[in-house]
């Protein structure tokens, strides 16, 4: 309380009295979807597979069942924006959908939904399907030849192996779009490099970029080029960037060797989070493969993100480009990197080191997730690095035990 309180109270009251009636809602998202089964474990690999939280950019929702599981009628509950209405789009037209109603998901049937905002001006359409898991053969060979512009036409997206989440590679390009709306597709941190691969075909180019005035405003001055499998939740890019990168996809094989063609180009001065040059520090690219246990003892999902992708106790196997580390295991910045990469292409062989025994039963039931990750700045998650630092990547071979 201060001496102004007496004067201010009427002002605040006056202003509050002027508040108008709230406008009707304009949003119309599916925030989560759940399927109801008496015994989820018979159909799904994990109990948590029956509930999906939907990020705001997703409209195609897929549940993956065990390869042998038969699904039929399943009750569905959609959690949508408060006030929004749910319509099930059937052959006879849109019908209001009551949560908990059972839908037939047999033989991969796709159900379409339209969510209409409270003010009835805005709507979004979603599809929901329940698909069988496809058996995967383990060894992966990836050459970054299949890419296209995303729906907005702003940046490139790459097709990945089927075992990857959504069958796609993920990266921070959607986050870069928020800060640098004027950037052309080839100005993004993750771009294809046509004709520049070791074999003369296309390869992947990661480059640490300046995020411009908006990046500076929110103290995220640089964007490292990145590539990984999992989910990039662009909604968290500003709030909690480390949480935006959700690493890994369930994997049923035991990787033993990670081979990849790499070359690097040194960028400008190494900048700390405040954009100030750090003398005596040279930026380093990063490449790693991780296998981690994706479920805890209580059956809850374990999701590695930028906070613990390389340090989580759930990690059972790790292979990474060499770096300096402090005695306590934290990253040590230095002027003499030991990653061994040069401006010339070379095939790097990264051994996969196991910290724990693999349980074959758990492995076969998708209890482990695989991460393949790259970055042009190894401290990029903390918005530290050299603008212009580049990592070129091609011809990944992940070899697994038979």
């Amino acid at each position, binding site marked *: 309380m201060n001496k*102004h309180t007496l*004067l*201010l109270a009427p*002002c*605040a009251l006056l*202003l*509050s009295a*002027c*508040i*108008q*009636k*709230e*406008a009707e809602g*304009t*949003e*119309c*998202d599916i925030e989560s979807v759940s399927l109801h089964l008496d015994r989820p474990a018979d159909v799904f690999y994990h109990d948590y597979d029956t509930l999906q939280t939907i990020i*705001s*950019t997703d409209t195609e929702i897929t549940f993956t069942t065990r390869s042998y599981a038969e699904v039929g009628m399943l009750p569905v509950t959609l959690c949508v924006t408060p006030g929004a209405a749910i319509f099930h789009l059937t052959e006879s037209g849109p019908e209001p959908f009551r949560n908990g109603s059972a839908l037939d998901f047999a033989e991969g049937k796709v159900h379409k939904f339209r969510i209409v*905002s409270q003010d009835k001006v*805005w*709507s*979004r359409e979603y599809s929901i399907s329940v698909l069988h898991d496809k058996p995967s053969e383990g060894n992966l060979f990836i050459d970054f030849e299949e890419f296209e512009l995303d729906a907005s036409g702003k940046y490139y997206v790459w097709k990945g192996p089927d075992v990857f989440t959504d069958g796609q590679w993920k990266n921070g390009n*959607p986050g870069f779009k*928020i*800060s*640098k*709306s*004027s950037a052309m597709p080839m100005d993004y941190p993750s771009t294809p490099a046509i004709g520049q691969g070791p074999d003369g075909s296309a390869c992947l180019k990661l480059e640490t970029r300046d995020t*411009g*005035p*908006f990046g500076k*405003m*929110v*103290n995220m001055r640089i964007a490292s080029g990145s590539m990984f499998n999992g989910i990039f939740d*662009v*909604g*968290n*890019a*500003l*709030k*909690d960037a480390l949480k935006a990168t959700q690493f890994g996809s369930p994997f049923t094989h035991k990787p033993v060797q990670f081979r990849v063609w790499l070359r690097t180009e040194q960028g400008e001065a190494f900048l700390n989070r405040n954009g100030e040059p750090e003398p005596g520090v040279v930026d380093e690219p990063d490449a790693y493969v991780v296998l981690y246990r994706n479920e805890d003892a209580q059956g809850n999902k374990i999701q590695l993100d930028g906070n613990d992708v390389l340090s989580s106790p759930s990690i059972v196997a790790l292979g990474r480009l060499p770096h300096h580390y402090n005695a306590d295991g934290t990253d040590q910045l230095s002027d003499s990197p030991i990653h061994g990469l040069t401006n010339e292409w070379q095939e790097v062989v990264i051994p996969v080191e196991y910290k724990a025994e693999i349980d074959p039963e758990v492995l076969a039931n998708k209890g482990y997730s695989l991460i393949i990750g790259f970055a042009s700045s190894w401290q990029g998650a903390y918005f530290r690095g050299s603008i212009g630092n580049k990592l070129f990547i091609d011809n990944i071979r992940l070899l697994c035990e038979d």
Partner: protein
Amino acid sequence: MKHTLLYIVATFMLAALPASAQEDKWEKWGPTTGLTGGGFIARAGYVIGGTTPLPLPKEIRKINSFSPRGGISIGIDGYRMLSKRWGLSLGAHFFWEGFHTSADVKNYYVWLEQEGEITKGYFTGTNVTNTEMWGATVPLLCTFRISPRWNVSLGPYLSYYFKQTFTGEVYDNNEGVGYLREDTPVGTKILMTRDNPTPYPDDFADHMHPMSVGLEACFDWKAMRHMNVFGSLDWGLSNIWQSDFEAISFKMYPIYGTIGLAYRY
């Protein structure tokens, strides 16, 4: 507003009528000498108010806090009474005024451009605004003398700002809700938080008009032979933003009141 003022003036006029017979009182409390003539009034006051959209748009759901910034006005008026009841005054008032406010908003359209980079969309969460203005106001007022000791004045004013600041930031509200829907209400939902608030671009003040016009209403009560107690209200009628400024989707007007003491001679 206009009706309220008329009502106040009328009330004072009625209340004052029975006293008008006492001519000596009129002279005693009049201008320096007699019923007509002129003089100067030096004023110093405390300023409180805000710069606000009018009416408050639907997007504003709740005012969390409000506090003034600055709040000083010093000036001088020259006045001349043309008759027993009517006069004119012209002044020059120097002021430092401003405020800080925190408001919860829903679907608040923002359009931010910095060095050619554009971020736009609909924000829901907490919006904090701070503005301060240093300047001078020239009011030209018509004075009506209600009673020997009460004057009311009304007239237009012109303000010129030497310096203006307009800063702010957006983040999540007390319920933890803070996000921008990019471009449209169904666009990408970008979460925002008070741990890493998103500030307004630092060039907002460059888009403010250096001048504004409005109406000033003022009352003076002659407490002592040379000392007035006064109160005034400056009601801005021109948008503080330049017409091509799109970052804020509604017009905003400065509305500031002053209470103070004046020396009359």
